[in-house]
């Protein structure tokens, strides 16, 4: 069967380089001679403890190559919760989720946000692929309301992507959501404070998201199916729409900040001796 497929695929090649089935047979004969090595078909079926678990559920690519390499199943899992822990809310959520939102919207799914601390701004979200037909904002303030709305939306299994801010969820409440989410086809993201890192949670995937000054996102996988994750992944990310206005000088804002701090330190020492307000002013303007 494999040979037939190979022939059919290589139409433009008159003679295939090798006959696949015979090659496979020789390999199969050779391998058992070497102890400690398994035939390839057995090898493929074995899961080893140091590998990433490959979930049976569906995943959606995160859009970042480096992140996909570390996520089990190479993408954001559907049928389960994903926790995003941040020191401050509304700093980098859309930047991390923009690629997956673009996929969801392209497939006709809706993006539902529950209880964001600030007003989502659609003209900016357009750069993340959202339009006004695919965004629903549920304003829920009380923690119980947020949980109830999230649970209803998960159970209804009607939203393509659910993004919910649950700053005060307890672990038994999350476990309940996770049980519901197993029947939900879309990915479910819960935004929680970084302090929740020390609480146990039923979410199979928990990531710590930090904002990097040089147009980066720092992601650390706190919990995943598979080995523990060391260090952090740096994802290049420019907020939608800002690519067009970033000049080469602005590529590394950390250098600008460092230069400004050096200058301020120098000016502080100058200021002890002489005051020169005009020069201060001129320098500030050039820094812009």
């Amino acid at each position, binding site marked *: 069967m494999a040979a037939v497929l190979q022939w059919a695929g290589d139409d433009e090649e008159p003679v295939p380089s090798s006959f696949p089935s015979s090659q496979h047979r020789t390999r199969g004969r050779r391998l058992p001679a070497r102890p400690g090595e398994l035939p390839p078909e057995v090898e493929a079926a074995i899961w080893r403890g140091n590998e990433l678990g490959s979930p049976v559920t569906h995943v959606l690519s995160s859009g970042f190559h480096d992140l996909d390499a570390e996520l089990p199943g190479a993408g954001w899992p559907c049928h389960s919760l994903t926790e995003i822990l941040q*020191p*401050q809310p*509304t*700093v*980098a*959520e*859309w*930047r991390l989720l923009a690629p997956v939102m673009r996929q969801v919207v392209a497939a006709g799914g*809706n993006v539902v946000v529950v209880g964001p601390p*600030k*007003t*989502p*701004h*659609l*003209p*900016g*979200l*357009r*750069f*993340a692929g959202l*339009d*006004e*037909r695919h*965004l*629903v*904002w*549920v*304003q*829920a303030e009380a923690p119980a*309301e947020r949980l*109830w*709305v999230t649970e*209803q*939306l998960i*159970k*209804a*299994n*009607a*939203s393509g992507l659910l993004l919910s801010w649950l700053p005060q969820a307890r672990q038994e409440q999350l476990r309940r959501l996770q049980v519901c989410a197993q*029947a*939900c*086809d879309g990915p479910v993201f819960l935004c929680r404070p970084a302090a929740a890192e020390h609480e146990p949670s039923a979410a199979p995937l928990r990531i710590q998201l930090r*904002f990097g000054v040089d147009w980066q996102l720092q992601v650390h996988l706190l919990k995943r199916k598979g080995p523990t994750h060391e260090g952090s992944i740096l994802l290049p990310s420019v*907020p*939608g*729409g*800002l690519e*067009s*206005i*970033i000049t080469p000088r*602005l590529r590394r*804002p950390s250098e*600008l*900040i460092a230069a*400004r701090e050096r200058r*301020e330190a120098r000016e502080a020492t100058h200021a002890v001796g002489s005051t020169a307000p005009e020069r*201060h002013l001129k320098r*500030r303007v050039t*820094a*812009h």
Partner: protein
Amino acid sequence: MLWAALLPSDISSDASRRTEATSGLATWCLQFTPRVAVIEPLSESPAVVMELASSTRLFGGKRRLAARVREESADLGVRQLSWAPTSLAAVALARAGRSNGFSKPLDQCLDGLPLETLVAVAAHQATLVRLGCQTLGQVRALPRGGLSRRFDAQLLAALDQAYGLRPEAHEWVQLPDSFAARLELMSRVELAPALLFGARRLLLQMSGWLAARHAGVTAFTLRWCHDSMRSKSAGDGGEMTVRTAQATRDIEHLTRLLAEHLAKVELLAPVGDLELIALDVHALDEKSLSLIPEPQQAGESLTLVLERIAARLGPQCVLRPVVMEDHRVEWMQHWQPAPLARPRKLNRSVDIPQPTFVLPEPLRLATRNERPVYQGVLQLLAGPHRVEGGWWDRVTEDGKTTTRNVARDYWVALSEHAGVLWVFQTRLADTETAWFLHGIFA
């Protein structure tokens, strides 16, 4: 044809009780087939018959269906379960204590049965015995002409129907619209957990009723009546309502739930009767057994769930955006309740960079060395972007007319902790200027 006959075990002398027992059993039977009938409900031994030939495939084959009926009917207090090609034959075999009418040809099975097994024959038992007939086979061997002349028409009709020579007509049992079943306990029960044995029988009936209606229950009430020998202070009885989060008819789950609740109940007097009422019944979607998986449409549509959320939180809490053709950030978009109609044509939006979150009100920032401060001194990256105008946009609030005129210089600013921000500098009433935080590029 595959007929099953079920004989309830404890038949009370009271006619209404007897009808209750058979109708409860018939309700349970309706989950397997709509062809369920009660045979001779007022006779000494009433029976419930059901025709299962067309249901076998649905329940995984004849053998598995028979095993399931046998197991569950034993819990329901069925004395005898018999199978035969005709309903009267099944009843006759059941009354004779035999279960299988398919082991031999039907007439050989029936010929040896005593006369009492068919009610129409038993009515003439005295005469027939004097004629020397002890079994159905002997009655059948008598000349048909004489038999029809000397005895009534029912005798010959019942015999023919039992042997499958004449079609049978039944009055099918209709499924009741609501479920309430009573059970008289065999002995007085003094401990609440011991009620479970009787309650399980009622739960089985309820689960059969739910299966026939393709529904599940989210709340049911178990009522118990104290027997007549109670003390006056104990009252008539008590009741308990059990609620489940999801509609179900899983008998094991319901039994376990009921056991948990019964463990907390203390009975004031011995209990003689139980009653079970299904309160909230919801349609239950069943998994299809087809080979090819269907496109999944589990759950409800987004509109429905948003409607439900809006009903609880208020319509102003479930919002969809509408882009307005405006260059001022506050009025660039408008959030309206989700069910409202949106303009057919999508409005054009500005093509300059825009933040993804905005603050409801611009936040005034402190300054240090004339630089805006928000969680540290901000590094201004790009700008200024001048947004000006709005003198045409007059609003009247509290009798005071103001124009929403703005004159702002927007900057993209960077904070090491708070991310990429959208701040603006504007002129205040006098000559001083102020910095405001308006949005975040999150």
